[in-house]
């Protein structure tokens, strides 16, 4: 214990503590700081009146608490904010929903609206698989080219997005190539792969490969390898490969085919957004007319 005394130099009282001859001045907190502190306390009272603040035991009110005299909640704020953007979109959306694709394409404003909405929804939902620019990856189709598994018209793209591929929906697009590992011998698979490659490379193919292909593969992929979109059978003649175009990759796909899944987006996105997406994807480069 040391006694409280005044510092000689500044004339301020010390706290009475001393360490190796160093004493601590007992200056009061700055007055402006105290003032701000008091103001925040007073401010909080106003806050309690206006906003939901105090929890209660009654279970009434917003999440069981006082509601504030304005009735503000984060949910009403969200609803207002959504209503505001919907009102701004409504100028386009009503016409957009009613118009055919041809009419949308002919109307610069509507077409720009579709592309802008589609581009933003694409980044949030599609880019993770199909790439930011729609270039895809192995097993996830490139959307920039004109090779379509299930069709490249706006309507076909819209249906694919809406119901997905091998997704959990009754109307989903579905195809399943059988696994040929147990049906063909290894050298037969090799011959078929050579024949499949010959469609796009103009190489000489083994006749046995052609025979086997015509028997087993042509029903879906067509005799000339151009595929069948109705069944979702890929075009094998265009040098665009879904799971890789090396001979080994083609053989692997004949033995035990991979079957990709695309979710049905109708549970997550509105019909209008899906249509915007379809028009956006259609515009990337390979969009087809009827």
């Amino acid at each position, binding site marked *: 214990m040391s006694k409280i005394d005044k510092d000689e130099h500044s004339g301020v009282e010390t706290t009475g503590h001393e360490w190796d001859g160093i004493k601590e001045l007992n200056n009061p907190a700055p007055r402006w700081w105290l003032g701000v502190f008091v103001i925040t306390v007073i401010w909080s009272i106003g806050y309690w009146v206006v906003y939901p603040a105090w929890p209660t035991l009654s279970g009434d009110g917003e999440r069981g608490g006082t509601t504030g005299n304005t009735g503000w909640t984060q949910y009403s704020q969200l609803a207002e904010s959504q209503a505001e953007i919907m009102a701004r979109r409504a100028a386009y959306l009503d016409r957009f929903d009613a118009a055919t694709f041809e009419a949308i394409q002919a109307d610069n404003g509507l077409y720009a609206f579709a592309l802008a909405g589609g581009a933003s929804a694409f980044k949030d939902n599609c880019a993770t*698989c199909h790439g930011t620019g729609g270039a895809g990856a192995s097993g996830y189709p490139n959307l920039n080219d004109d090779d379509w598994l299930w069709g490249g018209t706006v309507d076909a793209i819209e249906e694919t997005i809406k119901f997905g591929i091998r997704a959990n929906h009754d109307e989903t697009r579905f195809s399943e190539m059988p696994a040929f590992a147990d049906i063909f011998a290894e050298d037969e698979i090799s011959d078929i792969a050579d024949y499949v490659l010959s469609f796009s490379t103009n190489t000489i193919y083994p006749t046995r490969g052609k025979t086997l292909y015509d028997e087993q593969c042509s029903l879906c992929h067509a005799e000339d390898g151009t595929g069948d979109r109705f069944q979702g059978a890929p075009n094998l003649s265009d040098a665009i490969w879904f799971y890789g175009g090396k001979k080994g990759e083609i053989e692997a796909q004949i033995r035990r085919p991979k079957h990709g899944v695309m979710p049905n987006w109708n549970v997550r996105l509105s019909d209008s957004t899906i249509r915007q997406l379809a028009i956006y994807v259609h515009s990337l480069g390979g969009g087809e007319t009827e």
Partner: protein
Amino acid sequence: MYSKHAALEKNSILMLIFVVITISIGGIIEIVPLFRMETTIEPVKGIRPYTPLELAGQNVYIREGCYGCHSQQIRALRDEVERYGHYSLAAESMYDHPFQWGSKRTGPDLARVGGKYSDEWHVQHMINPQSLVPESIMPSYPHLSRRVLNLADIGDDLIALRAVGVPYTDEMISSATQDAYAQASQDSDYLDGLFERYGEKVVARNFDGETHTSEMDALVAYLQVLGTMAELQDYKHDGSKRSGQ
């Protein structure tokens, strides 16, 4: 007034009493209303406890520290609802112990990631994220495919969760390991029991495509159920009425 403070500082028992009083005031006001959980949890249909496999997946999620970069809470803000879907409800994390709301998003929010991508995508993305999203900075987790999932003790996890209020039944606990293996295969004989205990909506399939049941199976099963339980089409926000779910 300042000098009277000295009396408190110099008497440890008096100091202790005043500290307890001060902290209690704040604590009681914040905590006591939560004892009545029905005032904080919205009534929404469809929420069920995690299946044993999903729970094993959540354990992997926690062990790998996924919460460090991914939140599981969609806030009631327009841009979040536009991007991720319906804002998160308290009911949707009421069986999470600990909850996985997170506090930072380096990667995207995962509260509604269930069903957004295919199983194959999740597996490939976990093994090598940059092969699918070149601009991603997520680390790779290839070991999850190799590590065989330890399910022998998963029933103990259910017991622990029941102790903190998750309504697991004795039957769920005794058949936990069996249910977990059943969910990780498409054609198990025990699937009926799984659906009976956890509902028809449970997704059972070979999540990682491999023959063994790996940690990847569990993690993908967990990710694929996130945000899919609540029947949000029937949910109406009503701030004035709260009742037990």
